[in-house]
C-alpha cells in the first residue's frame, strides 16, 4: 500500500465568537491556527464550546463574528458577510453516532459524496473499493450499517469522510460510542490512517487520555474560551491555567507566596509557613501570590536523601487501582493525593520534587 499524498492546507480561525442567547457566549473570541497535516484536539468539558467550534468549521452553525480559512480558501468571514454552506466547503466529518444512512449499503454510504460531486460511476466504484480496503472493510461493502459492529461502523464513517479527499477532516467524539477495549485499538488505528493520508484534522473530545495520545496539539477550552493551545507534553507539564491543570490529570492545588525568585530555584512559602523550592521558567515577583499544582503521580514518599520539600502526613484512605495505589493524605498544608506502587499506610513523609511543582497564577 503506497502512501496517498495530498496538498494539505492548514486551518486558521480568527476571532470566532458566537452567542447562544443574549447573555450566554458559546464562543468567545477564539483564534488559533493549525498546520497542514496536523491533528489537533479540542478538549474540554461539555458546554465549553468545542463542538460549537467544530460545527462552525463544518458550516452547521453560523458564527456571529470571525473568520475561518483552510489555506486561502475562506469558509466563513463575518466582515465580508461570507458564509459557505456545509455542502460547499468540501470537508469530511465523522459524527459521534457515525450517522451512517440506514437505507444505504456501506458502499452507497461511502460513495454518496462522490455521487453528489457527479464523479463517473466507474471511478466512484474504484475509489470506494480503495478506501474500504484502506479501512479494512472491503468485504462488507454490500452490507447495511445495522449489520456491522460498532467498530466497523466507525470505520465506515471514516471511510465516508475521507473518500472525497476533503480539505479538512472533522471528528466529533468518534470513539465515544465504542467499548473501552476497542476504543484503544481504534485510537491507534485512526491516528495511523490520519498520518498516512496526511490530512489536516480537527478532533473534538472530552477524553483527556485520547487527546494526549493522539494529538499533535491540543486546544483546551473552557466556557467558550481557549485556555491553552500547545503540544500534549506542554499541556500536561506546563499547564497555562489552573483550569488546564485541573481538567487534565489528578492535581492538588496549594496557595503560596513567593519569598525569593531565582532563575533556577525559587523559594515560596505556603499558608502555614512551610517553605518549598520550585523550579520554574516563569518570572516571579517577590510577595506575589500564586497557586502551586502537583500531580498525584509526581508526589513521592520521602527517602532519607530528601532534605527539602518534605512534608509530614498521615494516610486517611487508600484505593486500589490495580497498577497502583491511590491515597488521600492529610498533611499540615491540607489534603494531598498521592500514588504509590506498593501498599502504604499510617504516617508518611511526603516529598514534593521542585520540578514537579507547577506554578499557576492565583485564581
Amino acid at each position, binding site marked *: *500500500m503506497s502512501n496517498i499524498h*495530498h496538498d494539505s492546507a492548514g486551518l486558521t480561525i480568527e476571532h470566532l465568537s458566537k452567542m447562544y442567547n443574549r447573555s450566554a457566549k458559546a464562543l468567545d473570541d477564539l483564534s488559533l491556527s493549525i498546520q497542514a497535516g496536523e491533528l489537533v484536539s479540542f478538549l474540554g468539558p461539555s458546554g465549553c464550546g468545542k463542538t460549537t467550534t467544530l460545527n462552525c468549521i463544518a458550516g452547521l452553525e453560523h458564527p456571529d463574528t470571525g473568520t475561518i480559512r483552510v489555506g486561502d*480558501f475562506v469558509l466563513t468571514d463575518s466582515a465580508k458577510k*461570507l458564509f459557505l454552506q456545509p*455542502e460547499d466547503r*468540501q470537508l469530511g466529518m465523522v459524527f459521534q453516532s457515525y450517522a451512517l444512512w440506514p437505507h444505504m449499503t456501506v458502499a452507497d454510504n461511502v460513495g454518496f459524496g462522490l455521487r453528489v460531486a457527479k464523479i463517473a460511476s466507474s471511478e466512484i466504484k474504484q475509489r470506494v473499493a*480503495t478506501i474500504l480496503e484502506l479501512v479494512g472493510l472491503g468485504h462488507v461493502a454490500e452490507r447495511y450499517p445495522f449489520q456491522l459492529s460498532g467498530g466497523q461502523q466507525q470505520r465506515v464513517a471514516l471511510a465516508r*469522510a475521507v473518500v*472525497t479527499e476533503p480539505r479538512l477532516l472533522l471528528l466529533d467524539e468518534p470513539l465515544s460510542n465504542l467499548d473501552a477495549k476497542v476504543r484503544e485499538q481504534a485510537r491507534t488505528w485512526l491516528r495511523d490512517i490520519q498520518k498516512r493520508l496526511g490530512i489536516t484534522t480537527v478532533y473534538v473530545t472530552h477524553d483527556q487520555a485520547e487527546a494526549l495520545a493522539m494529538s499533535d496539539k491540543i486546544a483546551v477550552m473552557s466556557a467558550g474560551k481557549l485556555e491553552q493551545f500547545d503540544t500534549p507534553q506542554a499541556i500536561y507539564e506546563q499547564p497555562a491555567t489552573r483550569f488546564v491543570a485541573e481538567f487534565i490529570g489528578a492535581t492538588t492545588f496549594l496557595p503560596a507566596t513567593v519569598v525569593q525568585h531565582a532563575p533556577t530555584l525559587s523559594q515560596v512559602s505556603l499558608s502555614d509557613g512551610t517553605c518549598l523550592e520550585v523550579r520554574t521558567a516563569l518570572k516571579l515577583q517577590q510577595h506575589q501570590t500564586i497557586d502551586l499544582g502537583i500531580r498525584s503521580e509526581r508526589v513521592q514518599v520521602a527517602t532519607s536523601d530528601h532534605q527539602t520539600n518534605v512534608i509530614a502526613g498521615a494516610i486517611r484512605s487508600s484505593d486500589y487501582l490495580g497498577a497502583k495505589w491511590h491515597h488521600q493524605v492529610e498533611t499540615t498544608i491540607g489534603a494531598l493525593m498521592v500514588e504509590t506502587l506498593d501498599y502504604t499506610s499510617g504516617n508518611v513523609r511526603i516529598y514534593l520534587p521542585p520540578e514537579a511543582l507547577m506554578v499557576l497564577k492565583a485564581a
Partner: protein
Amino acid sequence: MAATAQTRPIKAIAKAPKWRLDRVIQWLIALAVVGLVLFPTWPILYQSLLEKPLYEASNTLSLQNFPRVLGNPKIWQVIGNTAVFMLGSTIVGTLIGIGFAVLLIRTDLPGAQWLQKLITIPYYVSALILAFGWAVMYGPQGFMTVMVREWGLPTWNLYTMPGLIMVSALYFMPLTFMYCSSSLSMADPQLESAARIAGAKPLRILLRITIPLIRPAMLYALVLTMVSSIELLSIPLVLGESAQIDVLSTFLYRTALVSGTTDYGTLAVVAIMVVLFISVLVMLQNHLMKQERRFVSVSGKISRARVLHLGWLRWPLGFVVYLFAGLTILVPLGGIILQAFTPFLSALINPFSILTMDNFKQAFEFETYRVAIINSLLIAGVGGVVATLFMAAVALLTYRSKFPMRGAVKYIAQYPRAFPGTIIGLGFLWALLSFPALGGLRNTIWILIIAYTMRYLPLGFSAMSPSILQISDELDRAARVSGTTWLGVMRHIMLPLLRPALLTTFTLLFITFLKEYSVALFLFTRGSQVIGTTMLEVWAQGGPGPAAALAVIQLLIIGVVRWLSSFIPTVKVRE
C-alpha cells in the same frame, strides 16, 4: 494495493451565491401554507365587518353585525342547543369510552380482543353512515322500533336531543377508548405493584392508582370530544332535521345553503364565535398535552398489565357488554347493509326474502352516483398523494430546516384545527365569490382537494412529525458535509427514510378524504359531487336504498384500504 492520487477538482468558490434554490423552495412551501390557511379565513373575518355580502361593490365597514347577532334570540337558542349537545355527547361518550378501556384492558372480561376491534369500528366509519344506520334501525319507522312496537312494548323517539346525544356519544366513544387504553397499557406496572405491596386490594388499586394515572389521557380525550362535537354536522343534520333541533353546525349549513339568505354578516359572526370557542379548547388541549408528559409515567415498555379478576361477574358482565356493543354498533351497521340490499327495510317482512341488487345497479348506472364515486376516489387518491407530499414538505420545513420563520409556519399549519368543516367550506365559498377569476376552480374537484388539504393539514402534520423527529439530525448533517444541499438531503436521506411514514399518512388521508363531505357541501357543483354529498341528497329525497348502497360502497373501500395498510412495514429506522 496501489492507490493513485486523484485529487477532486476543487471548485474555486469566490463567494456564496446571493440566493439559493434551497431557500427559494423553503419560501414557496411557507407561502403555500400561509396562503392555504388565509384563503378561506380572511373572507369570514372581512365579511363580519361588512354590511352587505362581500361580493357586492358598494360596501361599508362597520361593527354592527356583532350586536345584531348577539341580540338575536334564535342564535341564543342555537347556542343553547349546541351547549346541551356538546356536554351531553362528551360526557356520555367519554364515560362509555373509559368504561370500555378499563373493562377490556384491566379485567378478564371474556373475548376482550374481539370486543376491542368491535368498539373501534365507529371511528373508521363515517358519522354520516352511522346516522343513516341508526335512522334505518332505530328511527320512528325503523326496523328495531317497529319490531319492539309489534311486541307491544313502549318505544322511543330517536329524533330528539337525547337521541342525538346517544348516537354522537357512540361515535365519539372510540376516541376516549383509544387514548385511555393506550395510556392504561403504557403506565408503569411497578406503580401498581407498589400499591399491592403496600397492602391495597386490586379493586382499590384500580380506583386509586390506575384510573388517576390515566387522568391526563381522559382529560385530553374529553377536550378532543368537545371540539369534535361542535364540529359534527352529520348526526344533527340527519337525525335532528324533522324535530328542528338546530345546533351551530347545522345552523350554518342551513342558513348558508338551504335558506338562500343574503345575511352573510350573521353567518360570519357566528363562524367567528365558533372558531374562537374552539381555539380556546385547542389551547387547553395543547396545555393538557404538555402536562401529560409530566404526569404519566410512561415506561416505554408495554406492561404485562395486572388483571383484575371479575369472578362470578365475568360472564354476566360480558353478556351485558356484548349486548350493548351489538345493539349500538353492529345493528346500525348491519341495518345500513341490509338496507342496501333490499328495496325497503321493515320488521314486518323478512328482509332476506326480498334481497336485491337494484340499489347497487342504480349506483353504477345513474350518472350522478357514478360520478360521485369516481370523484371521491380521485380526491382520496390523487388528492391524498398531493396532500401527503405537501404535508411532508411542511413538516420537513419546520423540523428539518434553518428557515428563519419555521416556528411561525408550524403554528399556522396547526391553526385549521380550530375550524370546523362547515366554516372552512363557507370560507372557501366566499373566497371564490370574491375572486371571480378563480371561478373556474369551483366546478372542479381541485377546489375540494385544496380545501380538504387545508382542513387536514394539522392531521397530516402530526401524523408525520413523530417519524421525522425520530430520525437523528446527524444523518442530515453528515449528508450536508458530504456535499449535498438541503434539497438533496430531503431527497436522498429524509424521504427514503420516511417512506413508511408517508404511506401511513397517505392511508390516513385517503380514508379521511373519502369520508369528508361537510366542506364539500358548500363547494360542490353538478359534476364535482362526492359520495357524502350525494348520500345526503338521495337520503333527503326519500331514497334510503341508494343512499345505503353508496354507504356500503364507501365502507367497502375503507375496509380494503385498511386491510392493505396492514401490510405497510412499521419497522423503525435502525441506526
